[in-house]
């Protein structure tokens, strides 16, 4: 008999623009002790299924269908019965660890109130936290959420989620927004929780690597429907449905490392021993070194990957290369006669904030033409049309406002705008980190095609080593504001020389090793 049984689940949200069907008839079983992963892109309805199980959807959601836990119909439970079951029968590790702990209560306090609520011994608290990797430190001082790092918050939430000893643990996007090292730590944490308590788990994730590493069974969702399901190993090796195949292929860890070798074109952008100190925070904040002694060259037609942990100075270096920030030391040399703003263009991390929210996209996309006085509407259209076609975008999109267009489309429109002035250098600052894997693969593929036809030089900034390796001829690794190693992608991925690069590749291999 299965532990959790969901039959013909349908969830619809009432929105200002009409009803929105998020889940369209899903059947799902989780057996006792089994780990099931729900995977899919954002909007596939996977988180909605998880929250519907807990009956914690917002008020504008209507739920139809049946959800049973150990034969008990959750839809028929009173709110009070439901509260009794939450935490005790179904535990949750919530999405968004940064905001999911109550900021004004210490972690110990939140642990105690949860234990008390479910009639557990208060003395279990320190032990639970320790098991999740948050040992009580020497002092008896309480720890408040703001004192914890992102990974520590996630582990505290995991400890809180299993505090009531639930038989079913739901983990909603447990690795979203975490870098490679933290991701492998969370995977360890979840595996620990399972081995020690023998509970069943429903893991909701967009990350196929995490799903394959942890789950016994994987269910692939698309637009609120199940596309395919199967044993994790079998599905990882031979996905059946074309959608699953595309999803697996779009996983950066499964992309082949770029084998094209370094380009030997003329250098088009050279940075020589660039340094910059930045002030952040208040009036009296001390300036910190953001970039120090960084040198790189970018050849025509080449993609140089720039990678490193978050906060290592990648974005600051990009702004210096674009002339948006002046370096304190060192020099930047562009091989160009015209203005820098036509020679080099930027594609930023957040497509949804790339355009003036109060302008129609048509006007925004054409703005470089107006700025550089390159021609009127007719000339603009003549240049924009083929670019739209090349990027598989409908001209209708141009009549909309930015918020009416999806992130992937916006990023491609931003690319159109950047290419309008026919730059020689394109600086891509985490261009796909806010996008789904499939959209990511699509955008990156489009950039690679354009690069080939236009002989563009690209600086590709990414925290994802696998993604950088798949799309770059060479990779530069940054740590603490310094470029510690630059090597052809294959060489860096498989035989890193510096300690920093080695640490980085190991963290990415850790996620992969569990799958194989």
């Amino acid at each position, binding site marked *: 008999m299965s532990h959790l049984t969901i039959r013909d689940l349908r969830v619809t949200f009432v929105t200002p623009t009409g009803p929105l069907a998020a889940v369209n008839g899903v059947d799902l079983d989780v057996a006792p002790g089994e780990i099931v992963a729900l995977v899919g892109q954002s909007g596939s309805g996977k988180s909605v299924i998880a929250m519907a199980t807990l009956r914690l959807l917002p008020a504008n959601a209507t739920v139809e269908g049946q959800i049973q836990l150990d034969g008990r119909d959750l839809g028929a439970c009173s709110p009070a019965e439901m509260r009794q079951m939450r935490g005790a029968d179904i535990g949750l590790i919530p999405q968004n660890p940064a905001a999911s702990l109550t900021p004004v209560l210490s972690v110990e306090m939140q642990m105690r109130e949860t234990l008390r609520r479910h009639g557990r011994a208060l003395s279990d608290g320190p032990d639970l936290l320790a098991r999740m990797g948050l040992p009580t430190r020497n002092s008896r001082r309480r720890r408040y959420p703001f004192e914890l790092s992102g990974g520590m918050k996630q582990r505290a939430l995991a400890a809180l989620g299993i505090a009531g000893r639930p038989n079913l643990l739901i983990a909603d996007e447990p690795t979203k927004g975490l870098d490679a090292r933290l991701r492998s730590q969370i995977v360890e944490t979840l595996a620990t929780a399972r081995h020690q308590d023998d509970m069943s788990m429903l893991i909701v994730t967009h990350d196929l690597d995490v799903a394959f590493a942890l789950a016994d069974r994987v269910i692939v969702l698309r637009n609120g429907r199940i596309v395919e399901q199967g044993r994790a190993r079998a599905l990882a090796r031979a996905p059946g449905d074309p959608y699953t195949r595309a999803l697996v292929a779009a996983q950066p860890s499964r992309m082949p490392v770029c084998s094209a070798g370094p380009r030997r074109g003329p250098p088009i952008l050279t940075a020589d021993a660039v340094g910059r100190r930045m002030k952040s925070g208040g*009036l009296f904040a001390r300036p910190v070194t953001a970039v120090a002694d960084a040198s790189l060259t970018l050849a025509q037609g080449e993609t140089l990957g720039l990678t490193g942990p978050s906060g290592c100075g990648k974005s600051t270096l990009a*702004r210096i290369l*674009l002339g*948006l920030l002046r370096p304190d030391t060192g020099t930047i040399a562009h091989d160009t006669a015209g*203005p*820098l*703003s*036509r020679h*080099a*263009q*930027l594609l*930023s*991390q*957040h497509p949804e*904030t*790339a*355009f*003036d*929210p*109060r*302008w129609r996209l048509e006007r925004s996309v054409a*703005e*470089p033409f107006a*700025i*550089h006085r390159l021609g009127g509407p007719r000339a603009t259209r003549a240049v924009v049309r083929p670019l739209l076609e090349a990027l598989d975008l409908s001209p209708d999109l141009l009549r909309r406002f930015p*918020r009416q267009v999806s992130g992937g489309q916006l990023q491609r429109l*931003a690319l159109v*705008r*950047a290419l309008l*002035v026919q730059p020689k250098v394109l600086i891509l600052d985490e261009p796909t980190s806010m996008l789904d894997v499939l959209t990511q693969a699509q955008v990156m593929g489009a950039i690679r095609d354009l690069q080939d036809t236009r002989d563009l030089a690209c600086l590709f900034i990414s925290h994802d080593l696998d993604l950088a390796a798949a799309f770059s001829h060479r990779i530069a690794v940054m740590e603490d504001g310094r470029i510690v190693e630059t090597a052809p992608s294959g060489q860096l991925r498989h035989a890193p020389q510096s300690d920093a690069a080695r640490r980085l590749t190991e963290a990415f291999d850790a996620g992969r090793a569990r799958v194989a």
Partner: protein
Amino acid sequence: MKVAVTVLAAIAALCLAAPLVAPYAPDAIDMTDRLSGPSFEHWLGTDHLGRDLLSRLIWGGRSTILLALITTLATLALGLLTGALAGYFGGLVDDGIEGLVLLFQGLPGLSFMLAIAGTLGPGALSIFIAVVITSWADFARVVRAETLRLREAPWVEGLRALGAGHGRVLALHIVPNLLGPVLVLFTLRLGRIVLAIAALSFLGLGLQPPNAEWGVMINDARAYYRGAPILMLAPGLCILTVALCVNLIGDGLRDRLAEPDGREVLP
């Protein structure tokens, strides 16, 4: 909100066209017809000097609304200028303006408004000065914060990378984006300033009798309102209606202009 706009527009039109629509002059004294109730000649009756109440309401609204509008606009202009300068250029300009804003926000506005208007002596000009001095800092603070937020918005940086100059960014992008929040702030402030002007006039610090002004009319009516409560009820309801309409519009604008992410334009 539609109702509020219609009502306010009707009142404003009526008051601004006072010379054309008011049946009598606001200061036409008729001692033979004092404190008469509503009649066919005087729809709302007459006051203690036999002046037509309806005409005085219309002329009084003209004074109140015009003074409130001009004062709020001046406050807005000062706040917009200082706030946008501080927000966009930062540095020393910002530090200086920010210091002044903190100073004025740290002081009790109403008490200072009263003291300033009182010291300068009764009259529309002293009300104007008192209100502007004690209200500009709020505008400046909001405009500064909004400008800062816009200046650091990724799309503004993107425009700089595309080669757009400071002038283009400010004129075509930042200022139009500021209009929404500024409009909301203007409307909500206008409601408060209407009340403040009426209160100062009531105390005898604003327009002087025999001028018609709603606050002045309420003060005039104090001695007679037991016998003729309409003398006090009517101007009070006028102030209430105008302030309520303005506030309703402000609230409606705020909801309508809220960013797509649900972030409200103003607290």
